């Protein structure tokens, strides 16, 4: 009992913060989602707002965009991260520098990243257009054309995420047992065989972890959109979290924003549950 009490005492500060900044807002959002509220006041409307949200075309478009963002960024950034990790894990001159170079997108502030990419994507005198024009390619209006804006965002997100995930894979790689590799070497296994039979399966726990982070990150994108597109043109790059932000702080429609928050929470929970319940069983630790 005393031991337990001591444990609770140690956990208490974290619990306070969790309660204040996670449980309480979650419950409050759920509660508010049944009220129609604007700046003047609020009144109970039940599930009516949920019905309205699911009929709202901007919401549907934001949801579809978000799914495309996840599909476009998650697998590719994980593959690139894995490739980079295997590459910089081997010892050669300048690995340290390379690792730093791949990781650096992670530690510059999001807003700075957004501004850099805003310049890269600027039409005509932006970096990308200048480079492409050397090859005589006419580039589109990257952020101003609804067909290209999501693609442009996906490329930027991959650039940013791949280096971040690389660090996890690198840590995973360095924890793998040396003996199996020596054994494989003695048996005369080729590099690709080693990777397929040993490295990749042994890295599965890392992959699971990275995947959850990658998917949830793709639903948490908001800073870049705020700087680069404001969800436009014509909602072509609007995603859920940005839609929530707009609903709450441009339209001051707290009720609808709460509904959207609940929906986002359910999506994120579902992803985590699926990952841990289904994929976790197939992974060998």
């Amino acid at each position, binding site marked *: 009992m005393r031991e337990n009490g001591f444990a*609770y005492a140690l956990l*208490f500060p974290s*619990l*306070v913060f969790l*309660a*204040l900044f996670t449980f*309480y807002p979650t419950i409050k959002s759920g509660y508010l989602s049944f009220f129609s509220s*604007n*700046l*003047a006041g609020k009144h109970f409307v039940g599930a009516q707002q949920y019905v309205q949200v699911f009929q709202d075309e*901007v919401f549907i478009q934001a949801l579809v965009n978000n799914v495309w963002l996840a599909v476009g960024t998650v697998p590719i950034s994980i593959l690139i991260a894995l490739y980079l990790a295997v590459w910089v894990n081997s010892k050669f001159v300048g690995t340290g520098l390379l690792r730093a170079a791949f990781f650096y997108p992670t530690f510059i502030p999001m807003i700075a990243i957004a501004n850099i990419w*805003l310049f890269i994507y*600027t*039409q*005509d*005198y932006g970096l990308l257009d200048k480079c492409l*024009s050397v090859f*005589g390619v*006419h580039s*589109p*209006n990257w*952020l*101003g*054309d*609804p067909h290209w804006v999501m693609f442009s965002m996906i490329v930027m997100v991959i650039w940013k995420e791949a280096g971040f995930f690389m660090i996890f894979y690198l840590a995973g790689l360095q924890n793998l047992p040396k003996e199996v590799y020596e054994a494989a070497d003695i048996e005369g296994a080729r590099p690709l065989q080693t990777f397929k039979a040993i490295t990749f399966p042994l890295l599965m726990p890392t992959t699971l972890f990275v995947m959850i982070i990658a998917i949830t990150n793709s639903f948490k994108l908001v800073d870049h959109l705020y700087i680069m*597109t*404001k969800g*436009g*043109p*014509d*909602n072509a790059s609007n995603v859920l979290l940005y839609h929530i932000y*707009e609903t709450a*702080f*441009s*339209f*001051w*429609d707290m009720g609808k924003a709460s509904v959207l928050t609940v929906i986002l929470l359910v999506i994120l929970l579902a992803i985590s549950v699926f990952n841990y319940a289904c994929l976790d069983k197939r992974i060998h630790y």
Partner: protein
Amino acid sequence: MKKVMMTLLSASMLLTACGQSQSAKPAAAPAQSTAPAATQETAKADKPVELQFYFPVAVGGPITKLIDKLADDFHKDNPAITVKPVYGGSYQDTMTKVATAVQGGNSPDVAVLLSTDLYSLISMNAIEDLTPRFSKEYFNGFYEAFMGNTKSGDTVWSVPFQRSTIVMYYNKDLFKKAGLDPEKAPSSWSELKEAASKLTVKDGSGKVTQWGIEIPSTGYQYWMLQAMSLESGTNIASGDGKQVFFNKPEVQEALQFYSDLGRKDRVMPEGALEWATVPSDFISGKTAMMYHTTGNLTKVKTDAKFDFGVAFLPANKKYGSPTGGGNLYVFKNIPEERKQAAVKFIEFLTKPERVAQWSIDTGYVGTTKASYETDLLKNYIKDFPQAAVARDQLQYADSELSTFQNGQVTKLFNDNIQAALLGKMSPQEALEKSQQQADAILKSFQ
């Protein structure tokens, strides 16, 4: 475990409860201030007052430094009052901060917010009615066009501060190169199209290296469209914030013109043109003309390495431009002595010399007629006649789109305009849809 959770929950509730009771205090204060004005004057002299002043930065230039200096100068004149400027980010960020502060019972004292946020602030019951605080003559000193968005009916809720209109900037060097008269800007829509096509330059491979004109189409496309609608003969909303006229034929004509420039005449880049990069495009010579706020005048003047002109927006049936920019608001839930200090601060900011200096430093239009009578602004205009254009255009100006639920109405209108500019909808469809959506939102206010 359950017990722990219960304690936690009650602890957090206690915390929030404390926060509320604390922040409710300032609201109770005004009750005490029923003393006669004279004693208050003396009381104010001994008792220092501190004003929280929220402001945004929406145009280029060292605005933060200028505001700090204004606060310092005011403090020198009125040692008992200290103004603490709080930089809020963009207009929207500042509004978010103000609204959060008001809802938290900790409202700021004075703030610069969009003049179009008026109805949001009224529904929030956040702002002080300024009609009894100033004389009629004081308000008559402002240009009539700027008073539109500061009033609702006869009640004045705010004071014009950093106000703007849209003007046309053009590059005189590129005009000369294209064989156009650099002293004569296009003054009608057809002249504009003609000049723009002469100013659009392509390289050998057919790629455009210089555009004739750029009209931004992110963030404020409704504002640009509103200008063209005014030029065609109608405004797009009623003066009480309850009705919009998006589907009028004049608005349709305007949107057709707007989208034709990019999609049919090919004198403007297609797709969405970022509000913030259009001035850079103009300064770098990528476009020969641009529509933009006069608030960027000082930035363009400092950065452009060529001779440039500023002109009225070209007319269709007549000249026209909506006003824009921010007003000074005083908040309701603050003690009376701070309200009086805030009024003093506003009077200080709108003195002719101050307004003149502010206009010179930023490019915003001087809000009062008296400011243009000062030597400061007279001399400035003599050397830099471009600065007078926005003022002269004011006689054709009208209020900006401002309705109840303004954020929502503006957003849906913006989205549909963009859809039309991108060719996803015809102008007529886009406007009919906007009208329906806006009617549905505004129904409960009519």
